[in-house]
């Protein structure tokens, strides 16, 4: 059976009830951060599609301790889409030329298991 599409604020409220209050369970410091470059260059390179892929992957894996953020152009436009992962207490890792398929790997390998995806690595900020 296909689910009825969400079309009203009431439908959204029902979704909220079903989802429960999961966002407040952890403090900001315990969250893994995913940061996406969303400047003109990032957008042109497909950053918004990366955002979609990140949300879908987080939703599929029911990961609630991840905060997704965006940032502007950092001057490395030719390497966009850029995606940074910061696990609590660990250095900021930057991935470059990220595709939606890479998102699945980065989330399962790095966000969940803490293993850096070496072949997409751009740099590390300690």
């Amino acid at each position: 059976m296909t689910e009825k599409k969400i079309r009203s604020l009431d439908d959204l409220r029902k979704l909220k009830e079903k989802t429960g209050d999961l966002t407040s369970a952890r403090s900001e410091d315990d969250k893994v951060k995913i940061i996406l470059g969303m400047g003109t260059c990032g957008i042109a390179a497909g950053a918004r599609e990366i955002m979609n892929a990140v949300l879908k992957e987080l939703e599929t894996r029911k990961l609630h301790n991840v905060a997704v953020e965006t940032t502007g152009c950092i001057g490395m436009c030719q390497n966009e889409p850029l995606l940074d992962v910061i696990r609590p207490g660990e250095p900021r890792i930057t991935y470059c030329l990220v595709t939606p398929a890479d998102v699945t790997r980065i989330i399962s390998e790095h966000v969940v298991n803490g293993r850096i995806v070496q072949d997409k690595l751009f740099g590390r900020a300690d």
Partner: protein
Amino acid sequence: MLEDLSHHILDIAENGVNAGADEISISIDDSGDMLLLSVRDNGRGMTEETVKAVVNPFYTTRTERRVGLGLPFLKQLAELCGGVFSVSSEPGRGTQVTASFLKTSIDVPPLGDVPSTLMTLFIGYPGIAWKYIHRRNEKEFSADSVELREALGGGNVFLEPALALGVKEYIETNIDELYE
């Protein structure tokens, strides 16, 4: 160049964020022969000289790079499509960017995935009151990030992927209905 109008909307709306706005309104009017797009913010605004300069691709206030392509891209696109592009701004009051496109022009890009653009803005800039209004002939749909947040119980609800995707679907369904 950016792929479609929804990518331009995302790009132009972020200018308002960078201008320190706390309220940004995006409107689309897809009635009649022209498609009208407008993005208005209540940020710090620009002087007359700056307004003239922003459509120059080699003007930017950023220091990371020496070009600013967002507005020039949109201006070029609107003019290529038989439309008009304008920026009006006042220091301390905010800025409004408007672009129109002749729908019969073969160069007019599709509207694209507006729901993904809005969701990205809601998630990326939770401190901003985002307002969206989409008109199509006699029909109209509007979305307001503050109202949506309240409906979902307050707080930064868009951080919960299931809710963010739910809001995206809500916007998608309602925009689709304008075209039925």
